[in-house]
């Protein structure tokens, strides 16, 4: 299956769904700072890979797929769960890229230019994640 961009899905998302993800993302970022200040960068750093909006996103995907199926008069529970499960499988592949992001940050941030390290680490996250996704698809 080819990678596609479909902007119509944005119309399915209500404003409070965006608000929930903004609030969760903001809270976890603020919390990571507070934890690092209280317990040090070791414990604080763990929360940089916290699944901050994962529950909200999985619930949203499940709801969209269920509603889509039900609009055709069919039961959509299984379809919703399946879509959320496939999305979670994608996130597990993305987390491999996240590990390499953290590896680059830990090795180079202290001695190189910050914006180059963060930009390079983000590019590596995307590259590794897409490569893992393509390998998984080919198997």
């Amino acid at each position: 299956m080819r990678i596609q961009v479909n902007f119509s899905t944005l119309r399915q998302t209500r404003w409070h769904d965006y608000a929930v993800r903004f609030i969760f993302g903001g809270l976890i970022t603020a919390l990571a700072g507070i934890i690092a200040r209280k317990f040090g960068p070791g414990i604080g750093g763990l929360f940089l890979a916290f699944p901050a909006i994962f529950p909200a996103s999985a619930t949203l995907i499940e709801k969209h797929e269920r509603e889509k199926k039900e609009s055709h008069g069919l039961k959509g529970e299984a379809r919703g769960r399946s879509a959320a499960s496939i999305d979670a499988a994608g996130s597990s592949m993305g987390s491999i890229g996240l590990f390499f992001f953290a590896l680059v940050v830990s090795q180079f941030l202290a001695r190189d230019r910050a914006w180059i390290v963060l930009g390079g680490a983000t590019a590596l996250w995307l590259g590794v994640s897409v490569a893992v996704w393509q390998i998984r698809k080919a198997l």
Partner: protein
Amino acid sequence: MSQSLARFIIGGAIVSAFAIIGDVLKPKSFAGLFGAAPSVALATLAMTIVSDGLSYAGMEGRSMMAGAIAFFIYASLASRIMMRYKFRAILVTLCLIPVWLGVAGGVYYLVWVR
């Protein structure tokens, strides 16, 4: 307080941006990659570099590796449970948060504390 507010706003904005990218992409498994985007990390590290310096932010990156391992186990388990059993996504993803905490803390302790 003002720093926490700045973290909240910057974090919320970056997390939302990555979430919107994930929303418009197909297929679902590819879009899911963006569920593990380094959004919280980018916001936090940028703020930490400004307030505490590069070395401190680098130390956060080190233990973030343990968090990423925990994320992999968390998301893999969530995927399998939702595919195999008839539990709602919200229930599965929230009930597995202690697994993330346990694995992240455990890996950090075994690798860097012991």
